[in-house]
């Protein structure tokens, strides 16, 4: 396989034909190991900090509140209206018994 020598902003990814020169000398090996672990450490730290902030703010792992059960209330306006309706009926009933309408008998 043909080795491609990639160069990003002056950083040579390949040294002596190997990636980061790994395996060419103990110094290069330690350098690679150190950098990889530092990157891993930074990544883990970033993930942990992000997780901490989200948990602290309550943005993550939160159970959504379910639909609240309807709260029973007393509809006083409807109650007043209903009571008044039946009171009117009772009054009408009393009036009917007291004053009978003198409607004309249609058979006469």
């Amino acid at each position, binding site marked *: 396989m043909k080795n491609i020598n990639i160069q990003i902003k002056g950083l040579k990814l390949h040294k002596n034909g190997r990636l980061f020169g790994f395996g060419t000398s103990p110094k290069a090996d330690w350098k690679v190991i150190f950098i990889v672990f530092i990157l891993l450490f930074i990544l883990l730290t970033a993930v942990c900090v992000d997780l901490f902030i989200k948990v602290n703010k309550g943005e993550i*792992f*939160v*159970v959504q*509140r379910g639909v609240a059960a309807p709260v029973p209330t*007393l509809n*006083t306006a409807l109650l007043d209206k209903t009571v008044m309706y039946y009171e009117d009926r009772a009054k009408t*009933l009393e009036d*009917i018994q007291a004053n*009978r309408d003198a409607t004309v*008998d249609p058979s006469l």
Partner: protein
Amino acid sequence: MHDTKTLLISLSVISIFFVSAAGYVVYDLRAENQQASLLMNAADASVRSIDSAASLRVAQDSSADKIVELDKAVLEEGELVPLIERIEKIGTTLGQKTTIASVTVDKAEADAHTTDPDKVHIIIGAEGSWAGSIAFLHALENLPTKVSLGNVSLVSAVSTSDDPAAPTRNIWRLQTEVVVYIFKS
């Protein structure tokens, strides 16, 4: 070179161990946080429920007299006979000869909502003057409880008497079905 390889493998194993431990901690944190969230939701719901119960109690206390009035308008089991007696009394007051032809109780379905009332169909007959019959019909319409009228018939007839000397007079025969609703107490 051999030492470097051993060190690398060891470090890789340690790294995998720590990453796995971190994953487990996140998983555990997730479970704990969800549990805490559930408990907080339950606590909120409980507080809301206590608040609404208190406000309902206050509203109930302030409308106690209205609730008593409403209770009077609602027929319960055991109040059917007094209602029928009241209807007969109203008929008598209005000069009607009242008869209760039949009373049929239409029970609410057993699996229906518990607040569904039983329907009672009362077939009422009345005999008297035109004005009395109309007044009686209006009175039935205005009974101070939930009531509906149906199958109303008014037929004119001539009253007959055992005494042949007694004068004949025109009377009206009223028949109607009154449906009342009996709520479970």
